[in-house]
């Protein structure tokens, strides 16, 4: 394949299966705190993560009688012990209070236990108190905050992190992120160097540092040397682009959930759907996941031919040879055969879907936006997209991409596109637009470019109260994306007249057909190359600052254990895409690093925008 390792000296990844065992053992311990038979209610979005670390028989062994999904409806359980495994959400706790109060009213006595994961919030306990249930319910915390999805991907499985932190400005998950980092540090550290950029990254770093100080320090061989923390709002462009690397494309189209995808009948060429784990254990997938989609066909047909040849070998075999063939090779071939048909089916289905929706033109528009080329044509493409009521999310994605790359829309364009959008998809989206403006994703250009500078100067001079007001007033300005300037500085968009051979990628731009190097990954590359932010002052200024690079004085024997120094943990606060992971894997192969991606959740353009929709009750 195109990506045969450039450097053979990439270090080995640490073993993260330990994290699963820790989480499982802790859950079992908690279940045993409520001895005897009990029914377990599980929050819907915890089902898949739970599936990855335990199964029904694990739960049954610990006297879980029946399993229910939390549905905010009256319960039908007859058990006299109810256990709730939930995220710390006020509405879920309210529902539990309703259940308990209904029992009380009916004179039914039960024992209740709430297990909050990854932690409980005071606001939830306050609900228990208010509803008169505090004391009737025991509560616990299950610190399940790191789920390894693959050898090099660990997820916090907290998609709400993005909206809570960046849109609502609620810092409730900062400590969770710090704790996750702390756990990794105690198991695979000590880290010797930490880099980061973004407000939340800084806070997560501080939270982690405090937790390290609160705890004890141990010395053991570091398995992870360096850490890079990055906020999602440092780079919104990358997750808004269409993904064209196989794994990302599969995620965009079929939605990979917790490392698992459900392929429908159109893929499995049978009448039923099939759930398939997508990770490095799948040998076929492992070879194509990071490939540009255009290379996937070639690979799959080559594989199919090899498979045919391997099967054909059995012709003309005598009994003995046949026996060896069946016992030694057949099983492997069969497995490969199954995987191959699945991925061929998936590719076929991707092709059909993408052909239908003029994917070619869509990509062309995206590339023009990234390049800042023929913007009027792009606007009329987006307009037609809206007029024809093509996917509501897709239209929004293009609008946001236009706004970020252009530093906001001209007032005239903004008004007209917004009006047409509301006509096509419903006036309810006024609320969505308000959210997007708040986040700086879709804004009107403001007159007076220099206001940002002025704001920071004024902010330093006046007292807090006024500064607060000022920040509020200028908030949309402070969030200027400066994409064009950043793109020039960091050379993110290669010249379009150069040819790009996607089979022999020369840089990370291959994940976007050679049209764009993802900003997030480029920053990581630059900082690692320079061992800090020196020389990137202009870039960090354009990114509104909040960068840091610190080294630990007791970082251990960093010189001698050089392998660990080339294992780099990148933590995305607010989510990262499969394309970014592919880009980092590429960078790792080029530079002899191994990247471990820790993310609050796997995201893509649809998930990111869906989190900001407000057109539903």
């Amino acid at each position, binding site marked *: 394949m195109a990506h045969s390792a450039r450097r053979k000296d990439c270090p080995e990844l640490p073993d993260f299966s330990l994290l699963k065992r820790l989480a499982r*053992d802790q859950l079992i311990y908690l279940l045993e705190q409520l001895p005897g038979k009990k029914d377990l209610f599980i929050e819907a979005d915890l089902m898949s993560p739970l599936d990855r670390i335990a199964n029904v*028989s694990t739960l049954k062994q610990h006297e879980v009688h029946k399993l229910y999904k939390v549905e905010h409806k009256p319960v039908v359980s007859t058990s006299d012990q109810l256990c709730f495994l939930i995220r710390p959400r006020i509405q879920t706790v309210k529902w539990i209070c309703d259940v308990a109060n209904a029992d009380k009213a009916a004179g039914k006595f039960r024992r209740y236990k709430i297990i909050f994961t990854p932690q409980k919030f005071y606001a939830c306990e306050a609900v228990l108190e208010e509803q008169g249930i505090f004391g009737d319910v025991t509560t616990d915390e299950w610190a399940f905050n790191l789920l390894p999805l693959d050898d090099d991907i660990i997820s916090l499985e907290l998609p709400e992190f993005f909206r809570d932190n960046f849109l609502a400005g609620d810092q409730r998950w900062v400590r969770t992120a710090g704790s996750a980092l702390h756990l990794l540090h105690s198991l695979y550290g000590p880290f010797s160097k930490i880099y980061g950029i973004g407000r939340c990254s800084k806070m997560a770093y501080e939270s982690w540092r405090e937790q390290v100080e609160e705890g*004890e320090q141990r010395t053991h061989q570091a398995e992870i040397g360096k850490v890079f923390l990055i906020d999602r709002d440092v780079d919104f462009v990358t997750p808004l682009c269409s993904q064209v690397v196989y794994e990302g494309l599969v995620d965009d189209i079929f939605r990979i959930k917790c490392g698992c995808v459900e392929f429908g009948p159109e893929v499995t060429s049978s009448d039923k759907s099939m759930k398939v784990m997508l990770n490095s254990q799948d040998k076929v997938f492992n070879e194509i996941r990071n490939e540009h989609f255009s290379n996937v066909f070639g690979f799959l047909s080559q594989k199919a031919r090899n498979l045919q040849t391997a*099967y054909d070998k059995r012709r003309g075999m005598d009994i003995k040879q046949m026996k060896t063939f069946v016992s030694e090779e057949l099983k492997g071939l069969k497995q490969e055969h199954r995987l191959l048909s699945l991925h061929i089916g998936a590719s076929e289905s991707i092709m059909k879907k993408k052909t239908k929706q003029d994917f070619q033109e869509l990509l062309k528009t995206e590339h023009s936006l990234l390049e800042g080329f023929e913007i009027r044509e792009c606007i009329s493409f987006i307009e037609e997209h809206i007029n024809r009521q093509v996917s509501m999310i897709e239209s929004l994605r293009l609008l946001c991409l236009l706004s970020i790359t252009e530093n906001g829309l001209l007032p005239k364009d903004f008004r007209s596109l917004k009006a047409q959008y509301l*006509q096509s998809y419903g006036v309810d989206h006024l609320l969505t637009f308000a959210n997007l403006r708040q986040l700086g994703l879709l804004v009107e250009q403001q007159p007076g470019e220099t206001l940002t500078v002025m704001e920071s100067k004024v902010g330093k001079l006046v007292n807090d109260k006024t500064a607060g*007001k000022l*920040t509020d007033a200028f908030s949309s300005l402070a969030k200027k994306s400066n994409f064009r300037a950043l793109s020039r500085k960091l050379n993110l968009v290669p010249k379009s007249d150069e040819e790009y051979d996607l089979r022999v990628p020369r840089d990370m731009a291959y994940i976007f057909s050679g049209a764009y190097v993802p900003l997030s990954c480029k920053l990581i590359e630059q900082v690692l190359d320079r061992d800090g932010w020196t020389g990137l002052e202009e870039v960090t200024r354009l990114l509104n600052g909040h960068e840091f690079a610190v080294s630990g004085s007791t970082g251990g024997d960093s010189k001698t254990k050089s392998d660990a120094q080339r294992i780099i943990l990148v933590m995305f606060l607010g989510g990262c895409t499969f394309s970014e992971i592919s880009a980092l894997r590429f960078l790792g192969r080029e530079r002899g690093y191994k990247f471990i991606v820790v993310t609050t959740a796997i995201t893509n353009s649809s998930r990111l925008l869906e989190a900001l929709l407000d057109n539903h009750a």
Partner: protein
Amino acid sequence: MMKSKADEEEYWNSSKFKAFTFDDEDDEFSRLKESKQAVNSIRRLVEEDDDEDDVEKVSWSGEPVGSISWSVRETAASNQKTDREPAFPKINTDTPAISKSNSGYSLSSLFKGKSRGSFQTFNDSLSDSSVRLYAPELRKPKSEYKDYVSDWSPEETVQRMQQGKVVSLEKFRSLQDKLLLLDIAVSAHDGNVITAVLIYLKRTLSKEVLFRELESRQIALRHFIHYLTETRDQRLLLELLRALCRTEDMALLQYKEHLSIADENKRRDFLKSCLSLPFSAEDSAHVQDHYTVLERQIIIEANDRQAEREGKVEIFQKFPRRASILNMPLITTLYYCSFYHYTEPEGTYSSPLNIRQTFKISEKQYFVTALAARAKLKAWSDVDALFTSRNWLGFTRKKSPLSFQRVVDILQKNSAPTQVLQDYVALVDDADVRISLAQKHKCHDIIINTYRDLKDRQMLLGYRGKVERGSVEERKIDELLNNPQIRWKN
């Protein structure tokens, strides 16, 4: 394979943007199909003894698991904390300085906490990698650590809260103490603790005082707003926004309530009441439209439901309505009306032209929607009429606010027959686009005429091989090729 290596090479390298295509059904797709056939053809062998499943599936069905070996060791509460230098430096996290404090608390004292309770670590149990066990401390009663509650300083209180330990906030009674506690919580960057303090302040301060103090504390304010949103305390949230003079946010928040009103008449009345809310001028017009659309939808829905039930109107019999039009976007409403009420006079509520007028729908938008609706009904004469305009001499010609390429696309998606399609393919300006569209939709005449106009003999010759032998098309090509009057360029 299908193509020679060189061909392929050239294909993928030809240009950056063309390197990746989903449109070309001829090569990669069929290559893929071939692979699929190859794989399918060897399926039989595989299915001979199809007992085990090699693809890992995910299910809750229990596979037997080995007994989980684990034990719980309570890690001893260790107060081993020494005054060593921090391993990693503290960085400035840009929280506004605690201005309200005159008491000389420094931020750094916060992080150097002297008295520390036990803190869970993994060390004891994890230092031996073969038996890594984890002992959660969760069941340990938190009160174990409680000394004299009133002794905790604000810093210590916040720190204990961060660690999930029991604290009492009751001793923070003066406004100054309360605000100091809040500011310290904010500087600890723990949203959970910030909200906890806010819940306490909400309980113990009057709204006026609380709102006033929050105004200068943006981070705390955002937490409070989020808390009120989550607890659905709409009333207090509105009061807060009013106190902050955030009138637009207030308007939007009130407008949002319509989403939870299911009954359409009540929803309409509610929207009407929203018209007086202090929206921006622009949004105000949108909300007005929202109200007007729903008002119309209610009327149209009532009429059409009855018409459908009575069975007197043909179109409702032929194309029964699949869903109600209530609460649909404006453009969906326009489509619906272009579908069911196309010929109605402009005076009626359901006339597409009336809708266009009322809501100032752009020409292009109207056109796209009407085109799609009429094409769906296969009302080709209506489609034709949409494009036809007369110039001052009375000649008709076809005009479109939309590119004809897009028109063809819309028609084709509504399965227009070739005869209809070719009329519009022929109107595509760009010759290359025209040919590729014509090829896609098998409009031979257009291809032949285009090559003729381009005087491209070679292409025409090539195309002759693609049409059916003995067909009208072949004859036409032959006539052209034999026509001595054409000056071929090749």
